[in-house]
Protein backbone atom coordinates (compact mmCIF):
# COMPACT_ATOMS: atom_id res chain seq x y z
CA UNK A 1 0.00 0.00 0.00
CA UNK A 2 1.39 3.33 1.00
CA UNK A 3 5.04 2.99 0.24
CA UNK A 4 7.25 2.07 -2.61
CA UNK A 5 6.78 3.85 -5.87
CA UNK A 6 6.42 1.35 -8.66
CA UNK A 7 8.41 1.51 -11.82
CA UNK A 8 6.51 3.19 -14.59
CA UNK A 9 7.12 1.06 -17.65
CA UNK A 10 4.35 2.44 -19.80
CA UNK A 11 5.22 3.86 -23.15
CA UNK A 12 3.84 7.36 -23.41
CA UNK A 13 1.88 8.72 -26.26
CA UNK A 14 1.57 12.42 -25.84
CA UNK A 15 -0.45 14.74 -27.91
CA UNK A 16 -3.26 12.33 -28.63
CA UNK A 17 -5.55 13.91 -26.12
CA UNK A 18 -8.34 16.24 -26.98
CA UNK A 19 -6.75 19.12 -28.79
CA UNK A 20 -6.84 22.04 -26.47
CA UNK A 21 -6.14 25.67 -27.04
CA UNK A 22 -2.42 26.14 -26.61
CA UNK A 23 -2.85 28.64 -23.76
CA UNK A 24 -4.65 26.03 -21.64
CA UNK A 25 -1.67 23.75 -22.05
CA UNK A 26 0.81 26.46 -21.22
CA UNK A 27 -1.06 27.63 -18.12
CA UNK A 28 -1.57 24.10 -16.77
CA UNK A 29 2.06 23.19 -17.42
CA UNK A 30 3.25 26.36 -15.72
CA UNK A 31 1.10 25.76 -12.64
CA UNK A 32 2.40 22.19 -12.39
CA UNK A 33 6.02 23.27 -12.77
CA UNK A 34 5.69 26.10 -10.26
CA UNK A 35 4.06 23.74 -7.79
CA UNK A 36 6.75 21.05 -8.24
CA UNK A 37 9.62 23.51 -7.99
CA UNK A 38 8.16 25.51 -5.10
CA UNK A 39 6.96 22.57 -3.09
CA UNK A 40 9.48 19.84 -3.78
CA UNK A 41 12.69 21.35 -5.09
CA UNK A 42 12.96 24.61 -3.16
CA UNK A 43 13.14 23.00 0.33
CA UNK A 44 16.01 20.84 -0.86
CA UNK A 45 17.91 23.79 -2.30
CA UNK A 46 17.33 25.76 0.90
CA UNK A 47 18.89 23.01 3.03
CA UNK A 48 21.96 22.85 0.78
CA UNK A 49 22.29 26.63 0.97
CA UNK A 50 22.02 26.53 4.77
CA UNK A 51 24.58 23.74 5.05
CA UNK A 52 27.14 25.62 2.97
CA UNK A 53 26.34 29.01 4.56
CA UNK A 54 29.36 28.71 6.83
CA UNK A 55 31.70 27.84 3.98
CA UNK A 56 32.99 24.61 2.48
CA UNK A 57 35.56 24.08 5.23
CA UNK A 58 32.93 24.16 7.99
CA UNK A 59 30.80 21.80 5.92
CA UNK A 60 33.50 19.16 5.68
CA UNK A 61 34.71 19.70 9.25
CA UNK A 62 31.33 18.35 10.38
CA UNK A 63 32.33 14.92 9.15
CA UNK A 64 35.21 14.83 11.64
CA UNK A 65 32.89 15.13 14.64
CA UNK A 66 33.05 11.78 16.53
CA UNK A 67 29.28 11.74 17.20
CA UNK A 68 28.56 12.39 13.53
CA UNK A 69 30.91 9.59 12.54
CA UNK A 70 29.32 7.24 15.03
CA UNK A 71 25.87 8.13 13.65
CA UNK A 72 27.06 7.42 10.10
CA UNK A 73 28.51 4.09 11.23
CA UNK A 74 25.27 3.01 12.93
CA UNK A 75 23.21 4.06 9.91
CA UNK A 76 25.42 2.00 7.61
CA UNK A 77 25.32 -0.95 10.01
CA UNK A 78 21.52 -0.96 10.24
CA UNK A 79 21.22 -0.81 6.45
CA UNK A 80 23.91 -3.46 5.98
CA UNK A 81 21.90 -5.90 8.11
CA UNK A 82 18.35 -4.97 7.16
CA UNK A 83 18.79 -4.74 3.38
CA UNK A 84 20.33 -8.21 2.73
CA UNK A 85 17.77 -9.87 5.01
CA UNK A 86 14.97 -8.16 3.14
CA UNK A 87 16.46 -9.21 -0.19
CA UNK A 88 16.44 -12.87 0.88
CA UNK A 89 12.90 -12.50 2.17
CA UNK A 90 11.77 -10.55 -0.89
CA UNK A 91 13.09 -13.11 -3.36
CA UNK A 92 11.64 -16.03 -1.37
CA UNK A 93 8.25 -14.33 -1.02
CA UNK A 94 8.14 -13.32 -4.67
CA UNK A 95 9.17 -16.82 -5.79
CA UNK A 96 6.43 -18.57 -3.83
CA UNK A 97 3.75 -16.01 -4.65
CA UNK A 98 4.46 -15.49 -8.34
CA UNK A 99 5.38 -18.99 -9.48
CA UNK A 100 2.90 -21.12 -7.56
CA UNK A 101 -0.80 -21.15 -6.81
CA UNK A 102 -2.01 -21.71 -3.29
CA UNK A 103 -4.99 -20.68 -1.21
CA UNK A 104 -4.64 -17.51 0.79
CA UNK A 105 -2.21 -15.93 -1.65
CA UNK A 106 -3.95 -12.56 -1.68
CA UNK A 107 -4.04 -12.48 2.11
CA UNK A 108 -0.31 -13.15 2.17
CA UNK A 109 0.32 -10.26 -0.23
CA UNK A 110 -1.77 -7.95 1.98
CA UNK A 111 0.07 -9.10 5.11
CA UNK A 112 3.45 -8.36 3.52
CA UNK A 113 2.24 -4.79 2.93
CA UNK A 114 1.34 -4.17 6.58
CA UNK A 115 4.51 -2.27 7.53
CA UNK A 116 3.61 0.36 4.92
CA UNK A 117 0.26 0.93 6.61
CA UNK A 118 1.67 1.20 10.11
CA UNK A 119 2.82 4.58 11.38
CA UNK A 120 6.58 4.49 12.03
CA UNK A 121 5.95 5.58 15.61
CA UNK A 122 3.67 2.59 16.15
CA UNK A 123 6.30 0.28 14.63
CA UNK A 124 8.77 1.53 17.20
CA UNK A 125 6.21 1.26 19.99
CA UNK A 126 5.53 -2.37 19.14
CA UNK A 127 9.17 -3.30 19.72
CA UNK A 128 9.21 -1.27 22.91
CA UNK A 129 6.23 -3.29 24.13
CA UNK A 130 7.96 -6.50 23.12
CA UNK A 131 11.54 -5.95 24.26
CA UNK A 132 11.33 -2.97 26.63
CA UNK A 133 11.66 -2.93 30.39
CA UNK A 134 7.88 -3.29 30.86
CA UNK A 135 7.66 -5.44 27.75
CA UNK A 136 6.59 -9.02 27.18
CA UNK A 137 10.11 -10.33 26.75
CA UNK A 138 11.73 -7.56 28.81
CA UNK A 139 12.36 -9.46 32.07
CA UNK A 140 13.72 -12.47 30.20
CA UNK A 141 16.11 -10.30 28.17
CA UNK A 142 17.27 -8.52 31.29
CA UNK A 143 17.92 -11.84 33.03
CA UNK A 144 20.24 -12.76 30.16
CA UNK A 145 21.72 -9.27 30.13
CA UNK A 146 20.69 -8.64 26.53
CA UNK A 147 19.82 -5.10 25.57
CA UNK A 148 17.62 -4.51 22.53
CA UNK A 149 15.65 -1.37 23.31
CA UNK A 150 17.79 1.80 23.62
CA UNK A 151 20.62 -0.19 22.02
CA UNK A 152 21.82 -0.66 18.43
CA UNK A 153 20.02 -4.03 18.21
CA UNK A 154 16.66 -2.26 18.57
CA UNK A 155 17.59 0.16 15.77
CA UNK A 156 18.33 -2.77 13.46
CA UNK A 157 15.07 -4.55 14.31
CA UNK A 158 12.96 -1.40 13.85
CA UNK A 159 14.70 -0.75 10.52
CA UNK A 160 14.00 -4.32 9.46
CA UNK A 161 10.30 -3.82 10.17
CA UNK A 162 9.81 -0.56 8.27
CA UNK A 163 11.77 -1.73 5.23
CA UNK A 164 10.18 -5.17 5.19
CA UNK A 165 7.94 -4.96 2.07
CA UNK A 166 10.19 -3.02 -0.32
CA UNK A 167 11.99 -5.81 -2.20
CA UNK A 168 9.03 -8.21 -2.21
CA UNK A 169 6.74 -5.49 -3.55
CA UNK A 170 8.98 -4.72 -6.49
CA UNK A 171 9.56 -8.37 -7.35
CA UNK A 172 6.06 -9.87 -7.03
CA UNK A 173 4.40 -8.04 -9.96
CA UNK A 174 7.55 -8.36 -12.06
CA UNK A 175 7.87 -12.12 -11.58
CA UNK A 176 4.14 -12.64 -12.01
CA UNK A 177 4.32 -10.97 -15.41
CA UNK A 178 7.25 -13.14 -16.45
CA UNK A 179 5.45 -16.43 -15.78
CA UNK A 180 7.19 -19.76 -15.40
CA UNK A 181 7.96 -20.82 -19.00
CA UNK A 182 11.64 -19.97 -19.02
CA UNK A 183 12.30 -21.70 -15.70
CA UNK A 184 10.44 -24.80 -16.89
CA UNK A 185 12.44 -24.86 -20.10
CA UNK A 186 15.67 -24.71 -18.12
CA UNK A 187 14.59 -27.63 -15.95
CA UNK A 188 13.48 -29.60 -19.00
CA UNK A 189 16.93 -29.08 -20.53
CA UNK A 190 18.47 -30.61 -17.43
CA UNK A 191 19.35 -27.69 -15.19
CA UNK A 192 19.07 -28.25 -11.48
CA UNK A 193 17.13 -25.87 -9.26
CA UNK A 194 20.08 -23.72 -8.34
CA UNK A 195 21.33 -23.42 -11.94
CA UNK A 196 17.83 -22.47 -13.08
CA UNK A 197 17.61 -19.80 -10.40
CA UNK A 198 21.05 -18.36 -11.07
CA UNK A 199 20.97 -18.43 -14.85
CA UNK A 200 17.31 -17.69 -15.59
CA UNK A 201 15.52 -16.10 -12.66
CA UNK A 202 18.23 -13.75 -11.40
CA UNK A 203 19.02 -12.20 -14.81
CA UNK A 204 15.29 -11.77 -15.43
CA UNK A 205 14.60 -9.95 -12.21
CA UNK A 206 17.90 -8.06 -12.06
CA UNK A 207 16.56 -4.53 -12.65
CA UNK A 208 13.55 -4.93 -10.40
CA UNK A 209 15.82 -6.29 -7.70
CA UNK A 210 18.26 -3.40 -8.02
CA UNK A 211 15.41 -0.93 -7.71
CA UNK A 212 13.93 -2.76 -4.72
CA UNK A 213 17.33 -2.79 -3.00
CA UNK A 214 17.95 0.91 -3.57
CA UNK A 215 14.49 1.85 -2.26
CA UNK A 216 14.90 -0.42 0.74
CA UNK A 217 18.33 1.02 1.44
CA UNK A 218 17.11 4.58 1.13
CA UNK A 219 14.34 3.96 3.65
CA UNK A 220 16.68 2.01 5.95
CA UNK A 221 19.15 4.87 6.12
CA UNK A 222 16.51 7.58 6.31
CA UNK A 223 14.04 6.09 8.77
CA UNK A 224 13.21 8.42 11.62
CA UNK A 225 10.02 7.67 13.59
CA UNK A 226 10.47 3.96 14.28
CA UNK A 227 14.11 4.18 15.29
CA UNK A 228 13.47 7.35 17.28
CA UNK A 229 11.12 5.46 19.59
CA UNK A 230 13.46 2.52 20.26
CA UNK A 231 16.68 4.51 20.25
CA UNK A 232 16.51 6.81 23.26
CA UNK A 233 18.76 9.15 21.19
CA UNK A 234 22.03 8.49 22.97
CA UNK A 235 24.71 10.37 21.05
CA UNK A 236 27.57 8.16 19.96
CA UNK A 237 25.65 4.97 20.82
CA UNK A 238 22.12 4.78 19.42
CA UNK A 239 21.90 7.84 17.17
CA UNK A 240 21.57 7.18 13.45
CA UNK A 241 22.05 10.05 11.00
CA UNK A 242 18.39 11.18 11.03
CA UNK A 243 18.35 10.98 14.83
CA UNK A 244 21.59 12.93 15.08
CA UNK A 245 19.90 15.64 12.96
CA UNK A 246 17.12 15.86 15.54
CA UNK A 247 19.58 15.97 18.48
CA UNK A 248 21.56 18.76 16.80
CA UNK A 249 18.40 20.77 16.07
CA UNK A 250 17.43 20.47 19.74
CA UNK A 251 20.87 21.76 20.71
CA UNK A 252 20.69 24.63 18.19
CA UNK A 253 23.66 23.22 16.27
CA UNK A 254 21.95 23.96 12.97
CA UNK A 255 25.00 23.75 10.72
CA UNK A 256 25.70 20.15 11.67
CA UNK A 257 22.02 19.28 11.31
CA UNK A 258 21.81 20.81 7.83
CA UNK A 259 25.09 19.21 6.79
CA UNK A 260 23.89 15.75 7.80
CA UNK A 261 20.62 16.48 6.02
CA UNK A 262 22.46 17.22 2.77
CA UNK A 263 24.32 13.92 3.08
CA UNK A 264 21.00 12.08 3.35
CA UNK A 265 19.53 14.22 0.57
CA UNK A 266 22.35 13.07 -1.72
CA UNK A 267 21.29 9.52 -0.97
CA UNK A 268 17.76 10.40 -2.04
CA UNK A 269 19.03 11.97 -5.26
CA UNK A 270 21.10 8.87 -6.04
CA UNK A 271 17.98 6.76 -5.43
CA UNK A 272 16.03 8.85 -7.94
CA UNK A 273 18.82 8.64 -10.52
CA UNK A 274 19.01 4.85 -10.17
CA UNK A 275 15.22 4.71 -10.55
CA UNK A 276 15.42 6.68 -13.78
CA UNK A 277 18.15 4.39 -15.14
CA UNK A 278 16.27 1.23 -14.17
CA UNK A 279 13.08 2.56 -15.74
CA UNK A 280 14.91 3.42 -18.95
CA UNK A 281 16.58 -0.01 -19.15
CA UNK A 282 13.40 -1.93 -18.38
CA UNK A 283 11.33 0.02 -20.89
CA UNK A 284 13.94 -0.74 -23.52
CA UNK A 285 13.96 -4.44 -22.63
CA UNK A 286 10.18 -4.43 -22.79
CA UNK A 287 10.22 -2.74 -26.18
CA UNK A 288 12.74 -5.30 -27.49
CA UNK A 289 10.64 -8.15 -26.18
CA UNK A 290 7.46 -6.93 -27.85
CA UNK A 291 9.14 -6.27 -31.20
Amino acid at each position, binding site marked *: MAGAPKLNLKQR*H*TGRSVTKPIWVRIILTLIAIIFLVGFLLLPLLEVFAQAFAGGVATYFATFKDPFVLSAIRLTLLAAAIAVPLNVVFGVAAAW*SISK*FNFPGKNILITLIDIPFAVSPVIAGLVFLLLFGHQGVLGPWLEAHNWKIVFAPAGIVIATLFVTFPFVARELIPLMQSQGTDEEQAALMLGANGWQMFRRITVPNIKWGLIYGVILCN*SRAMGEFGAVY*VVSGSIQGVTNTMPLEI*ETRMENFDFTTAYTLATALAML*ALITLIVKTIVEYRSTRLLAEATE
Partner: protein
Amino acid sequence: MSAALQATKTTKSRKHHVLPGFGLSLGFTIFWLSAVVLIPLTTLFFKTCQLGWPNFVKIVTDPEAIAAYKLSFGASFTAALINLFFGFLVAWVLGRYDFPFRKFFDSIVDLPFALPTAVAGISLAALYSDKGWIGHFLAPHNIKISYTPTGVYIALIFIGLPYVVRTIQPVLEDLEGQVEEAAESLGASRMQTFLRVLLPTLLPAAIAGFSLAFARALGEYGSVIFISNNLPFKGEIVPQLIVNELSNYDYPAATGLAVVMLVTSFVLLLLVNTIQRYASRHQEAR
Protein backbone atom coordinates in the same frame (compact mmCIF):
# COMPACT_ATOMS: atom_id res chain seq x y z
CA MET B 1 -16.52 -33.83 -19.89
CA SER B 2 -15.86 -33.95 -16.21
CA ALA B 3 -13.01 -36.37 -16.90
CA ALA B 4 -11.53 -33.94 -19.39
CA LEU B 5 -11.90 -31.16 -16.87
CA GLN B 6 -10.22 -33.34 -14.28
CA ALA B 7 -7.39 -34.00 -16.70
CA THR B 8 -6.77 -30.34 -17.46
CA LYS B 9 -6.91 -29.62 -13.79
CA THR B 10 -4.24 -32.19 -13.01
CA THR B 11 -1.92 -31.02 -15.76
CA LYS B 12 -2.48 -27.47 -14.66
CA SER B 13 -1.68 -28.16 -11.05
CA ARG B 14 1.27 -30.36 -11.95
CA LYS B 15 2.56 -27.68 -14.27
CA HIS B 16 2.74 -25.31 -11.35
CA HIS B 17 4.61 -27.76 -9.18
CA VAL B 18 7.35 -28.59 -11.65
CA LEU B 19 9.39 -25.71 -10.31
CA PRO B 20 11.36 -26.44 -7.17
CA GLY B 21 11.49 -24.54 -3.90
CA PHE B 22 7.79 -24.00 -3.18
CA GLY B 23 7.86 -25.42 0.33
CA LEU B 24 11.14 -23.76 1.22
CA SER B 25 10.29 -20.29 -0.11
CA LEU B 26 6.74 -20.23 1.25
CA GLY B 27 7.86 -21.62 4.59
CA PHE B 28 10.58 -19.04 4.91
CA THR B 29 8.23 -16.23 3.83
CA ILE B 30 5.64 -17.15 6.44
CA PHE B 31 8.22 -17.67 9.16
CA TRP B 32 9.97 -14.35 8.51
CA LEU B 33 6.69 -12.44 8.10
CA SER B 34 5.50 -13.80 11.44
CA ALA B 35 8.75 -13.11 13.23
CA VAL B 36 9.27 -9.54 12.00
CA VAL B 37 5.73 -8.25 11.49
CA LEU B 38 2.83 -10.35 12.71
CA ILE B 39 3.97 -11.50 16.15
CA PRO B 40 5.30 -8.05 17.14
CA LEU B 41 2.03 -6.44 16.02
CA THR B 42 -0.11 -8.86 18.01
CA THR B 43 1.77 -7.67 21.10
CA LEU B 44 0.04 -4.33 20.62
CA PHE B 45 -3.43 -5.88 20.68
CA PHE B 46 -2.46 -8.18 23.52
CA LYS B 47 -1.32 -5.19 25.59
CA THR B 48 -4.50 -3.29 24.72
CA CYS B 49 -6.66 -6.15 25.95
CA GLN B 50 -4.80 -5.97 29.25
CA LEU B 51 -5.89 -2.34 29.62
CA GLY B 52 -9.54 -3.19 30.06
CA TRP B 53 -12.40 -1.40 28.34
CA PRO B 54 -13.01 1.52 30.78
CA ASN B 55 -9.31 2.36 30.85
CA PHE B 56 -9.07 2.17 27.09
CA VAL B 57 -12.04 4.51 26.63
CA LYS B 58 -10.60 6.95 29.13
CA ILE B 59 -7.26 7.02 27.30
CA VAL B 60 -8.63 7.45 23.81
CA THR B 61 -11.19 10.11 24.78
CA ASP B 62 -8.78 12.23 26.80
CA PRO B 63 -9.17 15.92 25.77
CA GLU B 64 -5.54 16.14 24.67
CA ALA B 65 -6.04 13.04 22.53
CA ILE B 66 -9.21 14.49 21.00
CA ALA B 67 -7.34 17.69 20.13
CA ALA B 68 -4.59 15.59 18.55
CA TYR B 69 -7.12 13.54 16.51
CA LYS B 70 -8.67 16.77 15.27
CA LEU B 71 -5.35 18.13 14.07
CA SER B 72 -4.14 14.79 12.68
CA PHE B 73 -7.34 13.94 10.81
CA GLY B 74 -8.10 17.52 9.81
CA ALA B 75 -4.62 18.29 8.51
CA SER B 76 -4.25 14.89 6.82
CA PHE B 77 -7.62 15.24 5.11
CA THR B 78 -6.96 18.80 3.97
CA ALA B 79 -3.47 17.92 2.77
CA ALA B 80 -4.79 14.91 0.86
CA LEU B 81 -7.48 17.09 -0.73
CA ILE B 82 -4.93 19.69 -1.82
CA ASN B 83 -2.74 16.86 -3.11
CA LEU B 84 -5.68 15.44 -5.02
CA PHE B 85 -6.10 18.71 -6.86
CA PHE B 86 -2.42 19.44 -7.57
CA GLY B 87 -1.58 15.77 -7.99
CA PHE B 88 -4.24 15.42 -10.64
CA LEU B 89 -2.93 18.51 -12.40
CA VAL B 90 0.68 17.31 -12.24
CA ALA B 91 -0.28 13.81 -13.44
CA TRP B 92 -2.24 15.34 -16.30
CA VAL B 93 0.54 17.65 -17.40
CA LEU B 94 3.22 14.94 -17.10
CA GLY B 95 1.08 12.34 -18.80
CA ARG B 96 -0.34 14.40 -21.63
CA TYR B 97 1.94 17.27 -22.53
CA ASP B 98 5.45 17.52 -23.81
CA PHE B 99 7.62 20.32 -22.53
CA PRO B 100 11.32 20.89 -21.85
CA PHE B 101 12.74 18.88 -18.93
CA ARG B 102 9.54 16.84 -18.65
CA LYS B 103 11.54 13.75 -17.60
CA PHE B 104 13.30 15.77 -14.90
CA PHE B 105 10.04 17.06 -13.44
CA ASP B 106 8.63 13.55 -13.63
CA SER B 107 11.57 12.29 -11.55
CA ILE B 108 11.30 14.93 -8.83
CA VAL B 109 7.70 13.89 -8.14
CA ASP B 110 9.27 10.90 -6.35
CA LEU B 111 11.46 13.12 -4.19
CA PRO B 112 9.18 12.87 -1.11
CA PHE B 113 9.37 9.06 -1.38
CA ALA B 114 13.15 9.06 -1.50
CA LEU B 115 13.92 11.90 0.89
CA PRO B 116 14.22 10.85 4.55
CA THR B 117 11.37 12.42 6.52
CA ALA B 118 13.72 14.18 8.93
CA VAL B 119 15.43 15.89 5.99
CA ALA B 120 12.08 16.91 4.55
CA GLY B 121 11.09 18.28 7.94
CA ILE B 122 14.12 20.47 8.53
CA SER B 123 14.20 21.62 4.89
CA LEU B 124 10.59 22.76 5.00
CA ALA B 125 11.06 24.34 8.42
CA ALA B 126 14.08 26.28 7.12
CA LEU B 127 12.29 27.35 3.94
CA TYR B 128 9.22 28.71 5.76
CA SER B 129 10.99 30.14 8.80
CA ASP B 130 11.31 33.93 9.20
CA LYS B 131 14.71 33.91 7.52
CA GLY B 132 13.90 31.28 4.88
CA TRP B 133 13.51 31.98 1.16
CA ILE B 134 9.72 31.82 1.34
CA GLY B 135 9.29 32.69 5.02
CA HIS B 136 10.97 36.09 4.77
CA PHE B 137 8.37 37.19 2.24
CA LEU B 138 5.60 36.13 4.58
CA ALA B 139 7.06 37.44 7.85
CA PRO B 140 6.28 41.15 7.14
CA HIS B 141 2.63 40.17 6.56
CA ASN B 142 2.67 38.41 9.90
CA ILE B 143 2.12 35.02 8.29
CA LYS B 144 3.98 32.34 10.17
CA ILE B 145 4.20 28.78 8.92
CA SER B 146 7.21 27.13 10.55
CA TYR B 147 6.71 26.24 14.21
CA THR B 148 2.94 26.72 13.97
CA PRO B 149 0.12 24.25 13.27
CA THR B 150 0.08 25.55 9.66
CA GLY B 151 3.45 23.90 9.25
CA VAL B 152 1.81 20.51 9.80
CA TYR B 153 -0.27 21.04 6.65
CA ILE B 154 2.78 21.99 4.60
CA ALA B 155 4.71 18.88 5.70
CA LEU B 156 1.75 16.59 5.00
CA ILE B 157 1.21 18.06 1.53
CA PHE B 158 4.89 17.48 0.80
CA ILE B 159 4.95 13.83 1.78
CA GLY B 160 1.59 12.93 0.21
CA LEU B 161 1.95 14.34 -3.29
CA PRO B 162 3.62 11.38 -5.05
CA TYR B 163 0.90 8.98 -3.91
CA VAL B 164 -1.77 10.88 -5.82
CA VAL B 165 0.37 11.51 -8.90
CA ARG B 166 1.67 7.95 -9.16
CA THR B 167 -1.78 6.41 -8.73
CA ILE B 168 -3.50 8.60 -11.32
CA GLN B 169 -0.69 8.85 -13.88
CA PRO B 170 -0.67 5.22 -15.14
CA VAL B 171 -4.47 5.18 -15.55
CA LEU B 172 -4.33 8.46 -17.42
CA GLU B 173 -1.61 7.18 -19.73
CA ASP B 174 -3.56 3.99 -20.35
CA LEU B 175 -6.65 5.87 -21.49
CA GLU B 176 -7.08 5.56 -25.20
CA GLY B 177 -7.10 8.83 -27.02
CA GLN B 178 -9.80 7.38 -29.26
CA VAL B 179 -12.28 7.39 -26.42
CA GLU B 180 -11.95 11.12 -26.11
CA GLU B 181 -11.97 11.57 -29.87
CA ALA B 182 -15.13 9.51 -30.06
CA ALA B 183 -16.80 11.63 -27.41
CA GLU B 184 -15.67 14.75 -29.21
CA SER B 185 -16.89 13.59 -32.62
CA LEU B 186 -20.26 12.62 -31.13
CA GLY B 187 -20.66 16.26 -30.24
CA ALA B 188 -19.50 16.42 -26.63
CA SER B 189 -17.95 19.66 -25.54
CA ARG B 190 -14.51 19.63 -23.97
CA MET B 191 -16.02 20.01 -20.51
CA GLN B 192 -18.53 17.22 -21.16
CA THR B 193 -15.75 14.92 -22.39
CA PHE B 194 -13.77 15.62 -19.25
CA LEU B 195 -16.67 15.26 -16.82
CA ARG B 196 -18.52 12.34 -18.39
CA VAL B 197 -15.78 10.31 -20.10
CA LEU B 198 -12.47 10.95 -18.36
CA LEU B 199 -13.53 11.60 -14.79
CA PRO B 200 -15.55 8.37 -14.27
CA THR B 201 -12.59 6.31 -15.51
CA LEU B 202 -10.12 8.18 -13.34
CA LEU B 203 -12.32 8.28 -10.26
CA PRO B 204 -11.20 4.96 -8.69
CA ALA B 205 -7.54 5.91 -9.11
CA ALA B 206 -8.25 9.36 -7.72
CA ILE B 207 -10.00 7.94 -4.65
CA ALA B 208 -7.21 5.40 -4.14
CA GLY B 209 -4.54 8.08 -4.47
CA PHE B 210 -6.40 10.35 -2.07
CA SER B 211 -6.75 7.54 0.49
CA LEU B 212 -3.07 6.61 0.20
CA ALA B 213 -2.00 10.21 0.74
CA PHE B 214 -4.45 10.48 3.65
CA ALA B 215 -3.24 7.24 5.27
CA ARG B 216 0.39 8.19 4.86
CA ALA B 217 -0.26 11.64 6.34
CA LEU B 218 -2.04 10.17 9.37
CA GLY B 219 0.99 8.12 10.34
CA GLU B 220 3.63 10.70 9.44
CA TYR B 221 5.94 11.74 12.23
CA GLY B 222 9.45 12.65 11.11
CA SER B 223 8.73 15.60 8.87
CA VAL B 224 5.95 17.08 11.02
CA ILE B 225 7.81 17.36 14.32
CA PHE B 226 10.49 19.59 12.80
CA ILE B 227 8.06 22.13 11.41
CA SER B 228 5.29 22.09 14.04
CA ASN B 229 5.48 23.66 17.50
CA ASN B 230 4.34 20.28 18.93
CA LEU B 231 2.38 22.02 21.69
CA PRO B 232 -0.45 20.02 23.27
CA PHE B 233 -3.90 21.18 22.06
CA LYS B 234 -2.21 23.31 19.39
CA GLY B 235 0.35 21.70 17.13
CA GLU B 236 0.43 18.16 18.46
CA ILE B 237 -0.39 15.31 16.07
CA VAL B 238 -1.34 11.85 17.32
CA PRO B 239 2.06 10.20 16.65
CA GLN B 240 3.69 13.05 18.60
CA LEU B 241 1.27 12.46 21.47
CA ILE B 242 2.18 8.75 21.43
CA VAL B 243 5.87 9.64 21.64
CA ASN B 244 5.16 12.06 24.50
CA GLU B 245 3.32 9.36 26.42
CA LEU B 246 6.26 7.03 25.84
CA SER B 247 8.76 9.53 27.16
CA ASN B 248 6.60 9.80 30.29
CA TYR B 249 6.76 5.99 30.47
CA ASP B 250 2.98 5.91 30.15
CA TYR B 251 2.99 2.81 27.94
CA PRO B 252 -0.74 2.02 28.36
CA ALA B 253 -1.75 5.45 27.03
CA ALA B 254 0.62 5.10 24.08
CA THR B 255 -0.74 1.63 23.35
CA GLY B 256 -4.38 2.74 23.40
CA LEU B 257 -3.73 5.63 21.02
CA ALA B 258 -1.65 3.41 18.75
CA VAL B 259 -4.51 0.92 18.41
CA VAL B 260 -6.90 3.69 17.36
CA MET B 261 -4.46 4.85 14.68
CA LEU B 262 -3.66 1.33 13.55
CA VAL B 263 -7.29 0.32 13.13
CA THR B 264 -7.95 3.52 11.18
CA SER B 265 -5.11 2.85 8.76
CA PHE B 266 -6.18 -0.76 8.28
CA VAL B 267 -9.69 0.36 7.41
CA LEU B 268 -8.21 2.80 4.89
CA LEU B 269 -6.00 0.07 3.44
CA LEU B 270 -9.01 -2.19 3.06
CA LEU B 271 -10.92 0.63 1.38
CA VAL B 272 -8.13 1.26 -1.13
CA ASN B 273 -7.81 -2.43 -1.96
CA THR B 274 -11.56 -2.80 -2.42
CA ILE B 275 -11.75 0.23 -4.71
CA GLN B 276 -8.82 -0.95 -6.79
CA ARG B 277 -10.18 -4.49 -7.08
CA TYR B 278 -13.59 -3.12 -8.04
CA ALA B 279 -12.01 -0.78 -10.58
CA SER B 280 -9.89 -3.46 -12.23
CA ARG B 281 -12.86 -5.83 -12.45
CA HIS B 282 -14.98 -3.04 -13.86
CA GLN B 283 -12.37 -2.28 -16.49
CA GLU B 284 -11.93 -5.93 -17.43
CA ALA B 285 -15.67 -6.25 -17.86
CA ARG B 286 -15.75 -3.47 -20.43
